[in-house]
């Protein structure tokens, strides 16, 4: 879906050609007066336009968080929609300052493509959706099934690996476009459809009868999705990472966009320190921003839980459960280093 093999090839070629874009991204961003983020050309809940044409989604809100941290104004974020082919060259060439385009963090992207990853704003993984009529309760019972899959993606490779490991037979039915694959599955062309779990939730909305389908419990791959920046600019990398950590810490400390103003006077030193209300604090300025940076993120964009609920969670049509994306205190993987 978001990892075509071609893109890696182009990205690798790009690395050879690209003149390393300017090292001081923060200075460039401040000079431009806005931060430019690469987003997807429409992935429901991650980045898609609303009725007014404004971008919405969890990746979009990450970018707004960066803008709020730097400028105190979430509208200073600009979005460049990128296909999975264009995204790496766009980051290499400096067309975008940061890629917040549900990109899986892999070692080859971290090393040979020359990017840096640190935070994961959505833990995803590849799953299966099947027709209930098939009476299958586990992916291990799928031997002999016809599987709809989008071609040229790691999804297709993961599928092959999984069935090979478990000694299962299957008939892949491949499609160039995700929309075609889902339509074919809905029309009964295959028994199973596989893509990332977040994608399975989005597909349910397009089905003629979603209740006849169920998502199997197995998750067969790890897809940590997070922002990528160019290597060689640690200061910018720190800012992008701490925007996410501030949002997660805010949720953990119970600071929301609604109560952030009162929370500034909270007796809790962790909260005061994060919101820059501590005497003589240098946390924000050391980051190259103002001490209000975290306050601005939470005030204008919200904490991680608010963003999640609004974009992909219960307050959105997707209604994805927190699952792995719950805070570490609630059995999930979202864990942020302390602000001190």
């Amino acid at each position, binding site marked *: 879906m978001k990892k075509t093999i071609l893109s890696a090839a182009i990205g690798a070629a790009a690395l050879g050609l690209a003149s390393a874009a300017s090292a001081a991204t923060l200075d460039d961003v401040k000079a431009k007066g806005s931060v430019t983020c690469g987003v997807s050309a429409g992935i429901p809940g991650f980045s898609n336009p609303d009725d007014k044409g404004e971008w919405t989604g969890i990746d979009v809100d990450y970018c707004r968080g960066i803008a709020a941290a730097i400028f105190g104004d979430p509208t200073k974020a600009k979005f460049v*929609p990128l296909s999975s082919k264009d995204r790496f060259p766009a980051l290499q060439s400096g067309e975008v300052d940061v890629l917040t385009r549900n990109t899986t963090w892999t070692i080859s992207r971290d090393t040979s493509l020359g990017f840096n990853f640190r935070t994961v704003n959505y833990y995803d993984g590849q799953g299966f959706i099947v027709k209930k009529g098939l009476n299958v309760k586990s992916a291990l019972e799928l031997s002999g099934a016809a599987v709809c899959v989008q071609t040229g993606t790691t999804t297709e490779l993961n599928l092959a690996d999984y069935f090979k490991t478990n000694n299962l037979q299957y008939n892949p039915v491949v499609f160039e476009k995700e929309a075609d694959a889902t339509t074919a599955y809905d029309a009964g062309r295959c028994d199973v459809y596989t893509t990332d779990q977040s994608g399975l939730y989005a597909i349910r909305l397009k089905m003629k009868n979603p209740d006849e389908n169920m998502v199997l419990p197995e998750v067969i791959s790890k897809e940590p999705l997070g922002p990528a920046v160019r290597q060689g600019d640690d200061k910018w990398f720190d800012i992008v990472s701490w925007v996410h950590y501030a949002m997660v810490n805010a949720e953990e400390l119970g600071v929301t966009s609604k109560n952030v103003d009162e929370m500034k006077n909270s007796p809790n030193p962790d909260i005061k320190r994060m919101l820059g209300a501590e005497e003589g604090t240098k946390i924000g300025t050391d980051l190259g921003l103002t001490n209000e940076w975290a306050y601005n993120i939470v005030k204008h964009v919200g904490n991680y839980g608010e963003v999640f609920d609004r974009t992909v969670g219960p307050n959105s*049509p997707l209604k994805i459960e927190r699952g792995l994306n719950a805070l570490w205190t609630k059995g999930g993987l979202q864990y942020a280093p302390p602000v001190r």
Partner: protein
Amino acid sequence: MATNASTFVRQSMLEPKPAPSSQTGASHWIRTRLFATPKDVILTILALALIAYIVPGMINWLFIDAVWSGTDRTACATVIQGGVLPDGQSGACWAFVEAKFQQFMFGRYPADERWRPILVAILFIILLVPMLIPKAPFKGWNALALFIVLPIISFFLLIGGFGLPHVETPLWGGLMVTLILSFFGITVSLPLGIILALGRRSDMPVIKTICVVFIEVIRGIPLISVLFMASVMLPLFLPDGWTFDKLLRALIGVSLFASAYMAEVVRGGLQAIPKGQFEGADSLGLSYWQKMRLIVLPQAIKLVIPGIVNTFIGLFKDTSLVSIIGMFDLLGIVVLNQSDANWSTPVTPITGYVFAGFVFWLFCFGMSRYSAFMERHLDTGHRH
């Protein structure tokens, strides 16, 4: 010899009689057009059966079962899909088009500034209509205004300047971008194509080679690669900090591409002009440009109007390829909005495509009708 067989000479014409009833009216039309031979009978019945099979379902889906208003997906989804419609009903979701209509027209152009593209569109229509009516006066001034002055005014109106807020091109989209790309492509490709065609037929080797190489190289590359190269590879070659507006890249790519095709169409017309016309012009002592402008081109262009319009229509539809470089023309923005989970239902994507297809058809059909009219208008009877 003398016979009194008086000759009868009729002095007045017979009153014309109406054609026999079997040769007129609807029944005649049906008999000769639809049921003339057994083969016709079979074909007619098959066609009628096909229409009866398809059309009621289409009308039902497009209009009767369609949803005309609503604020989100629940309006267009059935109960089982999490909506309000009775289960089993499936009809177009026009509410989706309604909610997104502004976006389909202007892309993400700021709402407060949308009067600017509307004003450009009004100016365009005011200048275009007299241009299209053959009898309207002041063609020269009109053309100057339409092809030179209007683009300059539109540029500043759309992008900003002179006190208007700046609107970056990445925010442009929808039908507006489709029309800008095609108008620019058409305006540039016709003159450039004519020059290339003349160059290709020129006796001067350098000019001829340049034109042949240009035409053959551009025609040999798919438009999608031209756009892809322009959007992905170009930024990597340019020095740091250089950005080259994406819309501009697309405009240049699309117009160069169309000119190469246009050149070959025009060359076809030039080759159809008899040698005598060239020689006649030469014998009058006309210069090369006079000869082309007064004698050859008017005849050649007239001959290839269908080919030219064909290229225009192709260009108009090809503009939707710009969505691969992250720009959103009409089709691109329709597809982009299908990713809005608030409107995600089984019928939304199809509705979007039907809408985009209808708008494209409207413009292409308009162009085709106008070209048919121009052919009739210019047909002065010189058939070779």
